[in-house]
C-alpha cells in the first residue's frame, strides 16, 4: 500500500491510476485535489486503524490516540473524498454504485462507532469499528482480488473493475458480521 501511495509522490496529474483518468483530471478542477486528499490521507487511516483495532486491551493510551486519528482522518478526509471519486469511478454504474455505497457505509460505521464510545458502550463501539475497518481494508482486498482474477481469467480491465468493486468489501463485511455473531453467542 505504501508503494502505491509513493507512486503519487511528488504530486503529478498524470501518474499511475491518473493516466486513465485524464478526462476527469482535465474537465473537473476539483478532481485532482480530492483524489490526492484520498490517496495521502487513506494510508494514515489504514495505519491508525490497524493500531487501534489490534492494540485495544492493554495499551489504552495508544488505542485512544490512534483511534482518534483514525476517526478524524476517515470522517474528515478519506471517506468523503472516496465518495466523490466513486461518483467518477471506472467501470460504469455497476462500479460507481459500489464505491459510493462503500464510502457512505464507511463514513456511517465510523460515525456510529465513535458515538457509541462517547456513550461508553464498549461492545457496540467495538463491533461498529470492526465493520468500519473491514470496509477500510477493502483498499487492500480489492487490489488483492484483482491480482487473483487477472491471473486466473485475464479479463478486460473494466470488466474486472466491476467485479472487484463489489468483491473488495462485501466479503470483508460478511466475515466481520460472522465474527460478531460468534462473539455474541
Amino acid at each position: 500500500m505504501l508503494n502505491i501511495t509513493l507512486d503519487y509522490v511528488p504530486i503529478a496529474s498524470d501518474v499511475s491510476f491518473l493516466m486513465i483518468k485524464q478526462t476527469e483530471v482535465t474537465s473537473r478542477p476539483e478532481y485532482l485535489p480530492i483524489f490526492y486528499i484520498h490517496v495521502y490521507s487513506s494510508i494514515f487511516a489504514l495505519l491508525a486503524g490497524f493500531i487501534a483495532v489490534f492494540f485495544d486491551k492493554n495499551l489504552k493510551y495508544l488505542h485512544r490516540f490512534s483511534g482518534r486519528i483514525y476517526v478524524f482522518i476517515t470522517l474528515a478526509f478519506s471517506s468523503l473524498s472516496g465518495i466523490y471519486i466513486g461518483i467518477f469511478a471506472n467501470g460504469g454504474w455497476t462500479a460507481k454504485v459500489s464505491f459510493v455505497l462503500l464510502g457512505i457505509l464507511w463514513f456511517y460505521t465510523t460515525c456510529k462507532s465513535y458515538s457509541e464510545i462517547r456513550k461508553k458502550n464498549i461492545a457496540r463501539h467495538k463491533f461498529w469499528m470492526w465493520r468500519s475497518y473491514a470496509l477500510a481494508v477493502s483498499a487492500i482486498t480489492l487490489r488483492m482480488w484483482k491480482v487473483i482474477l487477472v491471473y486466473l481469467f485475464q479479463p478486460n480491465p473494466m470488466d474486472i473493475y466491476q467485479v472487484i468493486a463489489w468483491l473488495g468489501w462485501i466479503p470483508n463485511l460478511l466475515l466481520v458480521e460472522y465474527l460478531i455473531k460468534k462473539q455474541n453467542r
Partner: protein
Amino acid sequence: MKTLNLIFASAILTVSVISCKKETKSEEKIKADSLASKKEVEQEFHKDWYGIYTGDFNSKPIATEYGNEIEEYKKISVKINRITKDSVYGYSVVNGNQRPFRGILNENTLGFVLDEPGSNKSDGRFQLKIKQDSLVGDWSAYNKSDVKSPEKTVKLIRKEFAYNPNFMLSKKSYEESDYENPVDWNGGKVKTESYVTDEGKTETYENTFYRSASDKVFVINASKQKLAEKDLKNLRKLDLQIIRNTVFARHGYSFKKATYRQFFENTDWYVPVSNNVDADLSPLEKENVALLARLEKYAEDHYDTFGR
C-alpha cells in the same frame, strides 16, 4: 606596445579566417547550385516505372531431405525514384530498415543492378529484371558472414501506395482463417502446468500462451474518430497496440517489430514504404496515438499488478 601589436595581429588573423570561411561557404553554395541545375537538365527515362514494388524477400531454397526449404520469409518494398541515362536512384525497406540504393539500368535486357551503400552490415546488391508490373531477381549481401541469409530471391509486384483512413484489419479475413481474431504469435508466454496422474504421480508440461485481440480492432478507427478514454479503457494492451499501429500501417510505415508487422502483412492494402511517417499523421491521428500510447503504458504497468 607588444600587447597592442598582439591584439592587432590576432584581430587581423580572425578577420582573415572568417573571410576565408565565408569564401568556402559561398563556393560550396555555387557548387550545390550547379549540381541542382545539372540535375534538372539531366534527362529522365522510363518515368512510368517509377513507384513502389512490394513483395517477397526470401532466402534461397535449400535442398534438404524433406524437399526444398526456405529458412527466412520477409517482405520488402523497393521504390524507384529516378532513372537517368547512367543511374537509377531509389531505396528499399525491409522490417523498418530503409536503405538507399544507386545503380544502373541495362536497356537491352531491362535489368537493374542496384547497390546499397555498404555502410550497413546488411547491405547488398540487387539484380532485378522488370516485366510489366513485376520486378524479379535476387539480392546478395556484400558481407556473407554477418547476415542470416546472404542470398535472397526477390519477387515484387508494383503497388500504388495511397493513404486511406478507411483501411482496417478485416474481420472477414480473420473469420476465414482458423483464428477468429488477431493473435500475437511473436510474444508467447510459456507456462508450466502440472497434473496428477492416476497413479498419483505429478506430471508437468509446458503450455505456451499467446495474446489474442478482441473484435474492437475491427471497429475502432483511430484515423477517423476522435477517441476518448472511455472508448478505450476496457481494452487490453494488444487491442490498443493494434489500433494505434493501424494508423502507422495506413501511412505505409515499415514496422521494425514483428509483433506489429504480422497483423498488416497479410492485408491487401498494406504497403510498407517508409521507416518514418510521423510527419504524415493528421492532427487527429496524433492526438489518438498519444492517448493510445498512454493507455498502453498504463496497461503494461498496472494490468496484473497489485493496484488499480
